[in-house]
């Protein structure tokens, strides 16, 4: 077992493109006298996001990560204008003696609360229909990281979008332990399955939807006598959507050596909780900062990142997560998550606010009423559907094109029906959702 991270150690591996970046290369880039720094980054590749984020951390700069998936209209709404995205500042670099000292130094500064200058701004979809901008310091992002000797040899698969909070967690977890990070986000399930073995991935963090796709590949292989279990995987983390016992059992069969846990993170609050099994508990530093009111999880505002434009997270000091939970015990506080962000539809880990999509549909000429809802789907967990009442009879393809020009792909309903009237009083979600 190697004692320390070395310059030659691989930091980032992208099997799709063959790109490989070492800790030494990151160190050299940060150590230049002067860097051309882009404070607003809309990364074209996951690698660009990973290196941008870590460089910001090393040189103590602010970075705004913009998802390339945003439509032109959404990008404008969050202020990601062409001028902003093209802005290049010349900023001083920071030298580190070695890869090991680079990681140690940043870790010490974080623990001492002096991680100067570094801020990360991410976007989430807000209930007003516009993405919300949230700025985090390192402590909010790094709250749940697991550090130490026994994590030195971990190999992480990055199965989340690196511009989202969950992806950022994985990147920081790998960096602070000097681990290899392997790009899996957006790869085909069969390719993901082969990379898990080829790259020797030991740790996976992903949404239940991602695991369902991966399990489908593995389970198909078991019928054809190909390798259908991955013994090298030691830890499976689920997040972003509610998981279920059936999925946990299938994961345990496919990854027999893996410890399976759930994590809870949100763009607003950063990383917060973990669970073994399906019961969540609080770490000691969070006791008193989380409460359950009328079955809803609420988080002390002090734990939140800074919202852009001074948007008040709440008026009474408690942020309402909108997540429905079942209280297991009060002392200590333990709970099960029943549904995350009630009324929101989770399309493959991408949370969609139906009200936002309905508002866009209602702007289509002739549309009088619109209802957007989620429907269970074996590929993505949920798929977005819509019903519209219109004066004329618009073609589905025209509605689709209109929406696709204004919304991210996951927010465009894949099944749109023109109906005479919309049945009211329905919950919106189909059975089992």
């Amino acid at each position, binding site marked *: 077992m190697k004692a320390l991270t070395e310059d030659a150690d691989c930091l980032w591996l992208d099997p799709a493109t063959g790109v490989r970046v070492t800790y030494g290369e990151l160190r050299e880039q940060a150590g230049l006298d002067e860097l051309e720094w882009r404070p607003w980054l809309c990364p074209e590749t996951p690698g660009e996001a990973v290196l941008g984020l870590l460089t910001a951390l090393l040189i103590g700069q602010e970075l705004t990560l913009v998802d390339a998936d945003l439509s032109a209209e959404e990008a404008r709404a969050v202020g990601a204008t062409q001028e902003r995205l093209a802005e290049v500042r010349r900023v001083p670099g920071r030298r580190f003696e070695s890869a090991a000292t680079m990681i140690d130094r940043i870790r010490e500064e974080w623990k001492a609360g002096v991680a100067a200058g570094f801020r990360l701004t991410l976007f989430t979809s807000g209930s007003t229909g516009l993405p919300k901008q949230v700025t985090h310091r390192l402590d909010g992002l790094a709250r749940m990281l697991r550090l130490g000797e026994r994590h030195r040899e971990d190999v992480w698969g990055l199965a989340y979008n690196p511009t989202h909070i969950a992806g950022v967690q994985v990147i920081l977890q790998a960096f602070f332990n000097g681990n290899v990070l392997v790009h899996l986000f957006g790869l085909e399930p069969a390719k993901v399955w082969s990379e898990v073995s080829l790259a020797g991935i030991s740790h996976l963090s992903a949404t239940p939807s991602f695991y369902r796709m991966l399990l489908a590949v593995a389970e198909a292989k078991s019928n054809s006598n190909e390798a259908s279990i991955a013994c090298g995987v030691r830890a499976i983390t689920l997040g972003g959507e509610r998981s279920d016992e059936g999925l946990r059992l299938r994961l345990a069969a496919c990854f027999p050596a893996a410890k399976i846990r759930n994590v809870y993170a949100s763009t607003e609050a950063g990383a917060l909780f973990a669970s073994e099994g399906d019961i969540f508990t609080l770490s000691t530093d969070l006791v008193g900062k989380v409460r359950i009111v009328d079955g809803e999880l609420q988080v002390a505002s002090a734990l939140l990142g800074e919202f852009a434009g001074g948007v008040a997270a709440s008026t009474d000091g408690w942020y309402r997560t909108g997540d429905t939970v079942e209280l297991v015990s009060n002392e200590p506080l333990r709970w099960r998550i029943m549904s995350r962000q009630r009324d929101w539809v989770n399309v*493959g880990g991408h949370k969609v606010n139906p009200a936002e999509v309905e508002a866009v549909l209602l702007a289509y000429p002739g549309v009088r009423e619109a209802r957007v809802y989620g429907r269970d789907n074996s*590929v993505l967990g949920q798929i977005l559907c819509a019903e519209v009442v219109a004066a004329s009879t618009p073609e589905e*393809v025209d509605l689709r*094109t209109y929406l696709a020009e204004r919304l991210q792909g996951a927010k465009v309903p894949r099944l749109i029906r023109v109906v005479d009237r919309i049945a009211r009083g329905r919950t919106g979600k189909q059975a089992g959702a």
Partner: protein
Amino acid sequence: MKSSPSLLSVVNQVLANKRRPAVAALAPDTRLREELGFDSLDLAELTVRLEEAFGVDIFAAGVVGTAGEIEARLPPERK
């Protein structure tokens, strides 16, 4: 669409919704992702539309990659 559905017609509907040209025929080894450019959202849409037409969830019993694999999971009595 009032004519009785087929895998081909449903695949073409998914393509048409993306303003992509229809395909004339599907061979058993036609790969949806590689040859037709279907992504996860397209596959999800295909499963929902096939489920509506045939009452079968083609992904329920594991992943499918080719037109032939889907045909094999659709009920035999259709036409």
